[in-house]
């Protein structure tokens, strides 16, 4: 926990990506994938990052030693234009934004929690967008997309989300 705390501390103090990396690592606690998303009950949660190296490094730091419900969290880097393999969370950085519409369209029905950081990410079919708002990172959630991916987003997460789309009335 100390190491986690230490990592979190750095994330809050330093760059935006430290915060975002921490968010990424925290998402598995607030999301529920369908059982078939995991081969085993203790299969790791795979976070795939389509981003610059320094972003991937921040995520790697945030992951260190973390586990959710007995599942390890594993980082996977995705090269531009490549397709992700077994993956639970896919982060597409702003720099790779141009790939996202195609990728999102392709992964539309896969149980992958897609996370982006661009304004139209949710419109493109992404599930969570990390938007900048008042010097902070705000969560934006597209529940319709989550429903398509058969991923249940915790209501707790929704309470802190600044924007929730596709909420069922």
């Amino acid at each position, binding site marked *: *926990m100390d190491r986690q705390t230490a990592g*979190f*501390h750095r994330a809050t103090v330093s760059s935006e990506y430290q915060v975002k990396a*921490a968010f990424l690592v925290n998402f598995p606690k*607030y999301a529920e994938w369908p059982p078939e998303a995991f081969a085993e009950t203790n299969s790791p949660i795979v976070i795939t990052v389509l981003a610059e190296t320094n972003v991937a490094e921040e995520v790697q730091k945030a992951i260190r030693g973390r586990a959710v419900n007995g599942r390890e969290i594993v980082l996977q880097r995705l090269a531009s234009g490549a397709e992700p393999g077994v993956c639970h969370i896919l982060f597409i950085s702003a720099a790779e934004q141009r790939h996202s519409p195609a990728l999102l369209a392709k992964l539309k029905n896969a149980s992958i929690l897609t996370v982006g950081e661009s304004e139209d990410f949710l419109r493109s079919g992404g599930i969570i967008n990390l938007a900048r708002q008042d010097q902070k990172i705000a969560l934006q959630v597209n529940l319709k997309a989550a429903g398509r991916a058969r991923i249940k987003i915790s209501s*707790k997460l929704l309470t802190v989300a600044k924007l929730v789309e596709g909420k069922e009335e």
Partner: protein
Amino acid sequence: MKFRDLSFRRKQTLIMMLTSSVALLIACAAFVAYDVATFRRELAEDAIVLTDAIANNCAASIDFDDPKAAADMLTALSANDNIISACVYSRDGSVFAVFQRDKGARFVPPAMRTAGQEFIGEEFHLFRPVKQEGEVVGAIFVASDLNDLWARLVRYLGIMGLVLLASLLIALVLSSQLQRLVSDPILNLAQLARSVAQEKNYATRAAKHGNDELGQLVDGFNEMLAQIQVRDAALRTARDDLEKRVEERSKELENTHRQLVDASRRGGMAEIATNVLHNVGNVLNSVNVSASIIVDNVKKSRTSSLAKVVTLLREHAHDLGAFLTDDPRGKHVPALLAQLSEHLIADQAATVTELNSLLQNVEHIKEIVAMQQDYATFGGVKEIINMVDLVEDGLRMNRGALNRHGVEIVREFEQVPSLNAEKHKILQILVNLLRNAKHACQESRRDDKRLTIRVTNGDDRIRISVIDNGVGISPENLTRIFNHGFTTRKDGHGFGLHSGALAAKEMGGSLTAQSDGTGLGAAFTLELPCPSREVPNE
């Protein structure tokens, strides 16, 4: 008032009240203590439930860096009046969000702890972890005041006071009624004991109410009374018996006393008689002397010479003239006759003188005897007495002896009222005192023997003092001089002064002795009451 002096009834009530109030207090205290403990536990439990609910909702705000959401969550605590402050800590222990009921108050969040609870002063502090999916993401702190607890405590104390008061009132009523069961028999017994002590009526009995210890006490008390009654009766019998015996003894004593008085009177009379006889003897001596002188005178009478002259004259009857003128013998006859007649006249005068003396002495004897007869006759009868005459009588009786021993008699008589008393008794005492004085003077062998008789009066008393300048009395003898059988004289019997003192006492007076010591004389004073009103004046 001290407790031990309180009445039994009050004591009992007090004890009951004290006992019940202590019991009630302990019970109430136990209830309150239990309630306070329960309340604290419940308070803690409620706080934990509430805090955990908030903590659960705070996880996301910590995880996704949203302090405002956390602060909103904490605001929900305002629904609970007890919570004064709260805060949420993030993973690294820094304060993430704060809630304060009183915005003006200063709230310094304590250092983060992921769990723990404690009562500090008047606050309850609770730390709970903020978890998400089993992972601790931070902590929450809630501070709650104990106002509810105090309010509850105050309410409880109020209820307790009311209950206590009501219970004590009921206890008071109950105890004052129930205590009669115990106290009434005791109070009755005490009342009975008091009345028995006051009225001395030992025939009373206490009523018994039961067979408990009080019943036993009543039995014991009654038994005691019965015993006292028995003893009382025995005592009364003994006392009556004693009274009777005392009466008998008194009667016997009275008889003895009377006999003694009689004896003493007779003794005194005998003494007077002896005295009288002695005096009579003395006078008789003089009588005898006078008689002898007369006999001698008569014997020596010149009647024979006269006869010789008569014979001579008868022989010369025929020549009587010649014989008287011529005869030498006849010439002497006239001268002889003249001488004879002279002698006879002288003899006659001497005889007459002696006879007169004889007569006088016989008269004195008559007087003494008459006096003795007088006192003997009127013994035991009171009469009006002239004290001076009585004293003179006494002196007269002893005159012979006093004269013989050359005792000068000094009379110092005051005017005293006449006295109503038994004459012989006083005379007896006086004669005894005079004789004693005479003896004392005689023994001293001094030349100026003197006896002073002083009669004085004052304070309704007549005092006759017989004062001599004789041998006196030593101090050790002075104290026992009136004792029966005490005497300093060889031929004394120690009865005179003793009976004299008794007689004086009998007459309501006293006989006292006074002497400055051996050789310094003595004074005996007979004091007799002489109430002026008793003396008839007419």
